[in-house]
């Protein structure tokens, strides 16, 4: 029952069309089983003067006085009848295409929306490739199921049903004989496709492994070459490639046995039916036309049986696909229970004993963090890799939610502020910003589509990006990403800065966002920025102590705790970690002394 619900839930709004298509399909199968009867009528009734098995309403159309007229009439009716069938068939297919694609469209959009709304922690754990595969392959599996397989099952069942009905009108015994082996065919086919799935899976895994090797080898070509490991990669790939081939061979052997074997069995059924049919015909139980009709009907039962077994055996695929989709759909979006409150945010930020820990972690990433930043002030956060700096930033925009303490914007707990509203007011420039595969211009103006061109260029100039962009062949309309240029880390960071310049926000966060820019450019940018963002509250995370020292306030994090805080001056006087860092990075003589000692 749960399964059934799962099968149908994606069809929402399309069930009506489904019903129409199904009814058309069923009527088509009935008409199809009538066609052999036209031949039977021709032979038995018109040419031999025996009874016709055509339904009465068609027989009535075929009355004429001479054989020639009768033949002409039946030929014409036969063609007209086929025309009607063809028209229904076309309509059925159109309706089918219509709802199938609507369903697929809805699925894709629903999934995309869902994925965007999933929380940051979900994304940081999720495997991109796996998610993409769910959104593409699994959707396709279901689309085929809904649009083709489900319909096909209906078609096969009714085709067989109507065939049996027509046959039994001619000879009950012959009908039974025609059905002797068919269940076996269904059984074999069902079991085969159920079992072969495992091998299919192995083939797929082998293929995925091979593809990954290509992908990794090609993206890491610099490393491969620099270490002269071409042979290793080629051997590895050929190994993968061979395993894949071996798995395919196994599948192939099974397939060959299945198709060859079932063909054999199907022909046994044919032979049986026909031999006995001949016997009955000779004894006058069957008319010649009926015998020919049986020839057709046997085909309408045995082949569909095998096909039916195949589809039913393949059902598991769809179930797996739907389960995988459910795994995405059943995760709560991060906007569930989001507050509607959109208070004004001026830039006063306060941390009150904030603590954070991942659910599956045994120690907290942040402990007891308290500080306050006034509107327009800047605060620098310094610390080792892993000291909790990035976590702190993720808390500010609620990519993660603190379990302990409170973070307040203008006195309002951020958990009581609408998430999107909060993020609209806090600009983050990341260390590894993501650029969309659009033009450079669009990537910069993404935050403010209506910004006049001049302003976009100006922003790029401030971010020391303008000249870089001009150097590209396509200038600002150069595409970013696979279809265009690949930007360096520094260029990406500067794009991120430029795009922030187009949208004034009360709070800005630089998450080590100038790390890949050279010193001179760094200074240039910072000078320009200081002018531009005078009234903005600024968070700076950095490794460069010279960047940190300009801040109004500096806090030093270590193992998730604030170990030092103050101004540059006071921290130097305190002679702690900060002072040590400062020494390392500035005091050359000190540096030399230490190094000399180290060497000697």
């Amino acid at each position, binding site marked *: 029952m749960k399964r059934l619900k799962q099968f149908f839930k994606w069809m929402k709004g399309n069930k009506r069309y489904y019903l129409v298509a199904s009814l058309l399909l069923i009527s088509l199968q009935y008409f199809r089983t009538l066609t052999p009867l036209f031949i039977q009528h021709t032979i038995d009734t018109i040419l031999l003067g025996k009874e016709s098995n055509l339904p009465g309403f068609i027989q009535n159309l075929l009355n004429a006085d001479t054989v020639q007229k009768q033949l002409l009439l039946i030929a014409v009716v036969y063609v007209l009848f086929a025309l009607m069938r063809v028209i229904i068939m076309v309509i059925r297919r159109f309706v089918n*295409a219509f709802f199938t694609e609507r369903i697929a469209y809805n699925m*894709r959009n629903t999934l995309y929306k869902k994925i965007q709304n999933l929380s940051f922690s979900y994304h940081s754990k999720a495997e991109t490739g796996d998610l993409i595969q769910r959104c593409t392959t699994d959707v396709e599996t279901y689309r085929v199921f809904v649009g083709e397989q489900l319909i096909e099952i209906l078609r096969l069942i009714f085709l067989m049903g109507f065939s049996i009905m027509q046959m039994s009108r001619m000879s009950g015994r012959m009908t039974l004989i025609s059905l002797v082996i068919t269940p076996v065919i269904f059984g074999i086919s069902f079991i085969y496709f159920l079992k072969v799935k495992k091998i299919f899976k192995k083939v797929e895994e082998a293929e995925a492994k091979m593809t990954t090797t290509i992908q990794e080898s090609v993206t*890491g070509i610099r490393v491969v070459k620099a270490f002269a490991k071409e042979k290793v990669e080629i051997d590895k790939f050929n190994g993968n490639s061979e395993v894949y081939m071996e798995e395919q061979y196994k599948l192939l052997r099974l397939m*060959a046995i299945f198709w060859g074997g079932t063909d054999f069995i199907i022909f046994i059924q044919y032979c049986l039916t026909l031999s006995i049919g001949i016997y009955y015909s000779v004894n006058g139980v069957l008319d010649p036309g009926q015998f020919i009709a049986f020839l057709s009907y046997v085909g309408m039962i045995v082949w569909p049986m095998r096909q039916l077994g195949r589809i039913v055996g393949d059902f598991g695929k769809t179930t797996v696909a739907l389960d995988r989709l459910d795994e995405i759909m059943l995760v709560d979006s991060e906007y569930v229970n989001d507050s509607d409150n959109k208070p004004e945010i001026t830039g006063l930020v306060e941390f009150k004993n904030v603590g954070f820990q991942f659910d599956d972690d045994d120690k907290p990433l942040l402990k007891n963090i308290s500080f306050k930043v006034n509107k327009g002030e800047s605060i620098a956060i310094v610390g080792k890799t892993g000291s909790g700096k990035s976590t702190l930033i993720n808390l500010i925009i609620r990519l993660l939610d603190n379990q302990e303490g409170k973070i307040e914007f203008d006195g309002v707990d951020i958990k009581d502020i609408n998430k999107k509203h909060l993020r609209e007011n806090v600009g983050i420039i990341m260390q590894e910003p993501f650029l969309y595969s659009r033009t450079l211009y669009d990537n910069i103006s993404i935050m403010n589509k209506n910004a006049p061109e001049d302003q976009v260029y100006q922003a790029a100039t401030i971010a020391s990006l303008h000249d870089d962009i001009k150097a590209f062949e396509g200038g600002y309309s150069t595409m970013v990403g696979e279809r265009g240029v690949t930007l360096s880390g520094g260029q990406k960071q500067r794009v991120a800065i430029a795009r922030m310049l187009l949208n004034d926000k009360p709070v800005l966060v630089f998450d080590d966002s100038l790390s890949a820019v*050279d010193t001179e450019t760094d200074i240039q940018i910072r000078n320009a920025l200081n002018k531009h963002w005078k009234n903005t509250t600024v968070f700076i995370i950095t490794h460069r102590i010279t960047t940190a020292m300009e801040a109004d306030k500096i806090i030093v994090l270590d193992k998730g705790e604030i170990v030092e805080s103050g101004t540059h001056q006071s921290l130097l006087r305190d002679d702690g970690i900060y002072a040590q860092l400062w020494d390392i990075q500035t005091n050359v003589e000190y540096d030399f002394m230490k190094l000399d000692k180290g060497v000697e």
Partner: protein
Amino acid sequence: MNYFEEEEYQDSKFDVKVWYKIFSYMKPFKRNVILGILAAVVLAAIDTIYPLINKYAIDEIIETRSLEKLPYFIAFYVVIMFLIGIMVYTFIIHAGQVQQKLSFALRKDAFKKLHELPFSYYDKTPVGWIMARMTSDSRNLSDILSWGLIDLSWGMLMMTGITIVMLITNLKLALITLSVLPLLIGLSIYFRTKILKAYRKIRKENSKITGSFNEGITGAKTTKTLVLEKENFNDFDGLTSNMKRHSIRAAMFAGLYFPSILFIATIATGLVIYYGGMDVNSDIITFGMLYLFIAYISSFFEPVMQLANILARFQQAQASAERLIDLIEKEPEIFDTKDVVEKYGDAINFKKENWEELIGDVEFKNVTFKYSKGETVLKDFNLHVKAGQNIALVGQTGAGKSTIVNLICRFYEPTSGEILIDGRDYKERSIGWLHDNLGYVLQSPHLFSGSILENIRYGRPDATIEEVIYASKLVEADNFIVEFKDGYDTEVGEGGTRLSVGQKQLISFARALIANPKILILDEATSSVDTKTEKSIQRAIKIVLEGRTSFVIAHRLSTITSSDSILVLEDGKIIEEGTHKELIKLEKHYFKLYTNQFKSKVIEESKNE
């Protein structure tokens, strides 16, 4: 992951050369091709003969009302039963093997070529493009040349067989039946081409959608922070709407195709019912003959539809073949000459026994370098670095630092001039010889999926665990590695996604050290590592670098102050050269760069205090 939007390809004329090359790939497994086609021939013959047997039953047994000949009928049937079973088996096995062997051979050659091509190739070619060649193109091509080719033989032979039998048995009915054939074939080709084109559009849309999903997932954090969810969804909706439109269109073509073929066949059947019925009535032909023609008409459908399909797909496969052959035959711009390969071996077979030891003396002699786009980066560049020297390269982005390093690595070669290693032009010895002695740590490090241990060992597969740990300790990576639950066995994820950039840098550093290189290149190798860690590494490096030639590029100048020599570059020229102390005393470019780092109000203030 990379997704690449497939370009539109044109229907091109049949290209004999390309097909010849592809077919010559099939030579090693000729046997499979022949057996597959043979099975197809037998099956086509059976399809032709089978209705004749039923005709025999009708005319010779039922009409004569004598069971005398029934055993013959059954015997015929049994033979056919066995033949079909065996031939279907043979057909699948061999067609499948042709497919597998062909795509294996194509992949193998293409992959090998990929590793011979220089970096300039990768600068120009997106990863997605390469992936498409390696996966879908090789699959398409081998598919059509195995199943397609063998199906084609089956269909053609069956149609020929049926036509011949029809013409022999009854000329009048044969001509009536065959009269609809041109219409059948024409319509089939028309629809197939239309459908294929529509599907191409769908595939194109589909790869865009996949790309968009990819962007939505990898860019999730950025999207959230910039609050672009709605925007992105609208763009996505545009794509899926297009997809829906194209798909429905394609389905409509497909939906018209089969019914119209069916209808034409029905007309033929109608004609046979009338004319055949008349002849039966006048005792010119038998019931069996009437049956035979009606049966043959329905046997005609499948091959006609299949033929149209295969022909249409052959056009598409040609595009795949062209691109693959193009890749496989691409001439690498950087390669070892025959003589060099003979002595030193190629990238696959090192002849280490002939390798001279690399000492590490590097010299640039009048080196000029131009990128293929045309901009000249270096002009008449000269530089001599003695073995064991530690050189730092400093300068603004675009000054030529990376170019110099890439030239040393022979990822690129000088446009003119030469680079000498240990006094000899490095082209005189193999690329493998150089790379085997090279350690290279990049700013954006690439890790392979696998454990940390495996990644470090990539530098030298036979390194012991102790050596791996020692190298990790040297670069301060051991600290965070042991913090992981699985320690050195921690999986790094695809491309190292589970580690931070700084961590990846340290691991790739350890990987380079373990290879024990004679020349070590650090290109912004520790830019994302915090200062303190970096400082500790510095001291270790100092020891590690003893006896090795090294080139260091760093923006953070504090990390290079102990270099033997610092080269300040501008526009591809060395404008200053000397030790840190010397250059500081000079109070020129380097001094400016260096003090820039600290130039700020606060420093001024602290001086005043």
